[in-house]
């Protein structure tokens, strides 16, 4: 009789452990896949941006040929966006954001360029993509946070094996400081 009770209890406990194991194994995998999916989202936007920038540069060149230095910087950052580690590619992308800002600042000096329909359209599209990159990065970091949480907290950490925390995508310095409004 007691043998049956102990046997039954042992079976229940082992069953529960197996269910937990399955659950956490899958959960950790799903959360990890979500990070990969989030990166794919960023990747799409980076590629779109990569394809758009030459059009912009050509348009600007038509009006402001001698701003060579800026064109070079833009080309360099653009190239970095498609090769290297995630961190490196995001760095290049952030760099491109700031060089594009100075490119648009330069464009301010050329009223005819500023009025160019094509230029306006490109500027809009690039701004849209920049926003989407920011949102995709936010989703990426949220996914990383969820993943890191499950593998470092109990009971998830018992099932995580030798998985280590995933790295966040860092935010560039200028975005971290609060926006100052000047009047």
């Amino acid at each position, binding site marked *: 009789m007691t043998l049956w009770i102990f046997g039954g209890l042992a079976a229940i406990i082992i069953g529960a452990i197996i269910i937990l194991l399955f659950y956490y194994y899958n959960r950790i995998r799903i959360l990890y896949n979500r990070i990969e999916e989030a990166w794919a*989202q960023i990747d799409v936007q980076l590629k779109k941006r990569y394809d758009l920038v030459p059009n912009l540069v050509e348009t600007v060149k038509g009006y402001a040929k001698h701003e060579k230095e800026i064109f070079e910087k833009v080309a360099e950052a653009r190239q970095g966006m498609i090769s290297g580690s995630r961190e490196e590619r995001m760095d290049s992308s952030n760099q491109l954001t700031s060089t594009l800002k100075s490119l648009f600042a330069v464009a301010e000096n050329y009223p005819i360029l500023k009025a160019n329909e094509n230029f306006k359209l490109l500027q*809009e599209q690039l701004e*849209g993509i920049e*926003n*989407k990159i920011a*949102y995709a990065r*936010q*989703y990426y970091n949220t*996914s990383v946070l969820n993943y890191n949480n499950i593998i470092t907290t109990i009971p998830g950490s018992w099932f995580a094996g030798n998985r280590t925390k995933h790295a966040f995508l860092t935010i560039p310095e200028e975005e971290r400081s609060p926006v100052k409004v000047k009047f």
Partner: protein
Amino acid sequence: MLKTTFSDEIAKNKRLSILLAISVSLILFFLIYFMMYFLIPELILIALPISAIIIIIYTYSSYRFGDTVVLSATNAKPADTKEYQYLRDTIEGLSIASGISTPKAYVIQSEDLNAFATGRNPENASIAVTTGLINTLNRQELEGVIGHEISHIKNRDILFMTLVAVLVGLAAIISHLIIRSLWFGARQDRRDKNGFMIFLLIIGVIFAIIAPIATRLVQYAISRKREYLADASGVSLTRYPEGLASALEKIANKNKGRINVSDAVSHLFFVDPKQTSLDSLFATHPPIKERIKRLRTM
């Protein structure tokens, strides 16, 4: 933390949707039964299974095409031209941030500031905004409103709210028809039937009166908590409560009830399109002031 909230909300909305579909089907079935009883009692045995099939088709198509019905009832048009690029970008950005596929964008021609989301799941969802909203709000404010709608999509509020609009909308129309047919039937000579028929007649009338009231109550009951929750989880996407708060402020100042929509869809909107602040007890939406207050104390 927010994740469990979302999956809880999704489960709750699916449960409520099934419950609603079943109870509306039953109510409709009884309404049809009474109608049959008075109009064509001879055919009732053939008519009832047919009406059961019709109700099943009706419920399924409410689920499947409810969003199309709502979009055409509100006169929303696809926002696929170049001038709405900005709106589409904003919707795409926020859906990326929340990890759902990008909903379709629609616009409603109106000077009022309003928006709604509809659909049955995130893969089949649409967001409609008024032209007034696009023209009046700045980027942060628009993002706040779109973030709110994306949250409705993500936690499947849209499924339940669209079903309420379509299923309940028709129930109201049918009970309306019943009252009319009863008036009509009363004129014809049916008094040779006994007191039992009068008893049923009374019940039929009560049903026809209760139906629209009950449907109205369902509408009123569903929205308030959802709106606060969508405000909060929308802000967790934009990370900027003030954007949504100032959007609500502009809306409170500028809306004049200029969107002409049926009561059956008003609960879908970002703020009550009629905006009568008279009876807050039965309002589909929490008061705008309260929403702003909650956002500013976040």
